[in-house]
Structure formats: C-alpha cells, structure tokens
C-alpha cells in the first residue's frame, strides 16, 4: 500500500471509531434535507437549487468541524511526532489525512442521493444541473477542507482550529458576495471587485450550480485548494526550523 494509502486508511477509520462521525452525518443530513424539504413542498419544483444554494453557508460550519482534528489532535496527543518521523514525506501524510476527511464528506454527501432519486420519480429534474450541483458541492467542500486542514495545523487546540477554519472559509465566502464587494469598493476603489474576482467563491459556485461546466470555475476551486494544501506542506517542513 502506498504511504498516502496507509495514512488514509487509518484516518478514515478514525472518524468512525468514535460516535462523532455518525452524529456529524446525521446533523448534516437532517439539516440539509430539512432545509430543502420545507420550501420544496411549497414551491413544488423538481430541482435542487435550494439544496445547493444553502450549502456554501452550511459547509462553513460543517467542514471545519470535520477538519479541525486532522493535525490538532495529533499535536495534542503526541502522535504528531510519530507521523513526522515515519519514513515518508510529510506531504504524503498530509494528503492521506486530507483525502480521508474528503472521503468522510463524500459519505455524508452520498446520504443526500435519495433527494435526486425522489425528484426523478416525482418529476423531470434537470439532471445536468443536479450533476453540476454535486460537482460544485464536492469542489466547494474540497476547498473548505483544504482551508480547514491548514488552520488545524497552525493550532494545538481543536476548538481554536475549528473557529479559525470557520472564519477563513467565511472570508472566502463573503468576498464573493456582491453586496460585500460593493461595500469594500466604496472604501478602496476597485479592491472589492478585485477580491471578488480573485478569491470570491460564489460566482464560480453558482456557475456550477446552473450545470455550466467551465474550465475557469474548475481551475478556481482546484487551484485555491492546491494553494492551501501547498501552504500546509510548507508549514509542515518549516516547523522543523
């Protein structure tokens, strides 16, 4: 098994070694499906736009809660030293942890599949938009998770890592909201628009949600995810000095 695979296996199992995983998944499904189903019965539209529309805000809380333990727990318990003296690159350890957390998120996301199945039975949903929505949810979660694993590495304490991760994700979310960028533009001309274009995630996410697959949007999510993972790897190496 590859080095990353060994770490992945242990980290993924770690989520399910405690009841927290099940609680997380239940909360994720109950809140998301609950938030979706209430207006669904009123609007009577066979699409998932509301569901995916809620995700960027909801995941700001959910993803950092999943990622907070990734490094902070190891640093607290002493296993960090074990991991960092294994004969493998620290980036391999990090990738294993990241992928395990993502796999956990995917499990939670898979739990929402009954919704599109139900829609397909009841009506005639735009499957392209549903697919784009799930892809967007995956990419968005991947970006938040990369922010989360990075902030988890900076701190020893899981709760602090959670709060810092949440703030960082919230900042990425906010700069993409037109009202916020307009306000910042009012303080410093052009800054708000610049931040919105460079970092704001909403425009990219909304494009995917409509089922429009464009290279730019994919590049935004994958690129920014890579930036945070590289920052994490740099921090892991720099910590030695």
């Amino acid at each position: 098994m590859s080095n990353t695979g060994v770490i992945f296996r242990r980290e993924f199992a770690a989520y399910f070694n405690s009841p927290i995983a099940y609680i997380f998944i239940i909360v994720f499904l109950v809140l998301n499906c609950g938030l979706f189903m209430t207006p669904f019965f009123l609007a009577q539209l066979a699409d998932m736009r509301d569901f995916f529309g809620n995700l960027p805000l909801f995941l700001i809380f959910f993803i950092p809660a999943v990622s907070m333990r990734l490094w902070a727990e190891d640093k607290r318990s002493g296993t960090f030293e074990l991991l960092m003296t294994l004969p493998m690159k620290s980036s391999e350890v990090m990738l294993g942890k990241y992928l395990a957390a993502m796999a956990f998120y995917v499990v939670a996301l898979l739990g929402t599949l009954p919704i599109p199945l139900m829609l397909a039975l009841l009506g005639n949903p735009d499957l392209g938009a549903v697919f784009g929505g799930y892809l967007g949810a995956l990419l968005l979660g991947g970006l938040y998770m990369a922010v989360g694993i990075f902030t988890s590495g900076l701190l020893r304490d899981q709760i602090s890592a959670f709060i810092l991760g949440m703030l960082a994700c919230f900042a990425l979310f906010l700069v993409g909201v037109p009202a916020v960028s307009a306000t910042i533009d009012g303080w410093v001309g052009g800054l708000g628009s610049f931040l919105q274009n460079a970092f704001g995630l909403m425009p990219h996410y909304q494009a995917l949600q409509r089922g429009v697959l464009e290279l730019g949007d994919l590049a935004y999510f994958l690129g920014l995810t890579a930036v945070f993972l590289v920052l994490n790897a740099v921090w892991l190496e720099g910590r030695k000095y």
Partner: protein
Amino acid sequence: MIEVRDVTKRFGATVALDGVSFRLDKGEILGFLGPNGAGKSTAMKIVTTFLAPDSGTVSVDGIDVLRDPLEVRGRIGYLPENHPLYVDMMVHEYLQFVGRARGLAGDELRRRLEWVVEACGLGSVYRKPINELSKGFRQRTGLAQALIHDPEVLILDEPTSGLDPLQIIGIRELIQSLARSKTIIFSTHILQEVSPVTDRVVIINAGRIVADGRIGELERAAMGRNRIFVAYRAPAAEAEAALRGLDGLHEVRPVAGREGAARFEVRADFGRDVLAPLGRLGQSRGWDLLELQESPFSLEDTFIALTRQSGGAREVSHV
C-alpha cells in the same frame, strides 16, 4: 553509527542546545542524562529528524539528517516522551498501522508483529483498545511501535518515566536484550536506571554536554579522589591523629558511627592502595578494626558535581 557535531538549536530567545557533540558506535548503548529541561529531548528530536538543527551536523549511519531524512527515519525506531499512541485504536490495529507505514506488509508484517508482541509482553492486551491500557502497557506498546521494523538504531526518550519498579525492570531487561544487535540512546533523569543497562553516559545540562564517558571515569573526573570509610574501637582523638600521620591520605573527617567506634571518612588518590596501611594501623595500635571499605561515589554525587560545575565543564568533557 550516530554522530552529532557541534549542534545548536534555539527556540526564540531560549538556547536549547549549545554546541552539542557526541558520537556513538554501532552496538553501543548510551544513557543520556540530565535534569528536566536540559535539552535531552531536543537533541533526540534532532537525531530522529523531527527537528532540524540551527547549525552543526548530525548523521546516522553516515547519512546526514538534513540531506536524506527519510533514509535516516527508516533506520531509526523512536519512542517520543509522550506516548505516541492513537487511543481510539486497538493495540493490534495500531501496531499494524505503524508497521505498514514503515513499509512492512504480508508475511513480514505478521512475523514482526508476532515478534514485538512477544518481546514487549503485549499478548494479553493485543486485542484491547489502547485507552483501556495501564501506563505500563501503554509504554510497552510505544516501545513495540519503535521496534516493529527491526531498526538498527533505537532512540528512547524517557522509556521508564512514570512506571512502577517492576515495570521499570521489565523495560530495562528488554533494552538489555536488544543491546547486542542495536545501537541505542535512551534518556532519563533518574540515575539509577543507567548503570544496570550501560556504563556509557552523556550528561547534558542547560543545553551543553557536561560529561561524556564511562561512569567510572566520570566519577574520577568529577570527584577527584577515592572515598574510604574506616572505623576502629579506639579513642577518637588518638585515632584521628594517627590517621593524619599516615601517608597518602588527603582528608580525614570524623563521621558518625556506632557506640564506642571512632569512624572516619578519608580520601585518597585513585589507584593508590591505602586499605592495607589502614588495616595495619589498627593492628599495630591494638585497635579492633570495625569497618574498612571503599565507598564508590554514587551516580548522584557525580551528577550533582558535574552539573554544578557546568562553567568549568569543558575540561571534564570527553574524558
């Protein structure tokens, strides 16, 4: 096998290691001694590549820790000071995980698992969750983790801390049984733990090496002279005068003894036989000899003497 040369490490304004050098040949066991906070753990973390030195070089089996850390890590089994255990796992899951992470698989992994479970006495807890284990079993699980890949070098940071006397003996015997085939550094601040396992020690204080050598040599260097206790059934003043007249004795100090005995602590140069003259003195005066013994300095005495004179430590080092 392990060579540490002139290593310095700072954490902010604190100097954790200041020009530390020592070397260890293949198959040697080194007791790494020093008060808490002296820099033992920092030095070990640098050898295991967990930390990088600010300056100086460290090599394991000829491989530089900065140039090829993965190669170095593959050769080292490391037990950090805080149990490096995943308490949510069972003992066997944990050991399998570390084994796989160290590149073992299949039959080889199974053989090594059997060996460490046997060697570390983990058979009775093999399928128990780690968070239900006693401190002794946790420590042994940590040790098993360090041994799983049959490393050439073992680095053990305070392997016996917090254990009861029986458990300490168990760990000590385990280290001794590994001695022939492995190069081992273990740290401790408890002196009695060193001498049963090895006589090679490095003493570190406030980030500097204060002594490096065999325990016996260090005692001589630190204390300067041998110490002998002698007691006669004789009038104290008379006996003291007689002793002061004897050749080769540097200090004569009356110390408490049993009723009717004149008891003294005397110092003599190492290698000079003063026991025979002391015995003859009693005979010639008609005093019964009640006690006559060379009393080696305890490691504690040596340790305190060496760490106190840290300033003048440079002369003592590398005996």
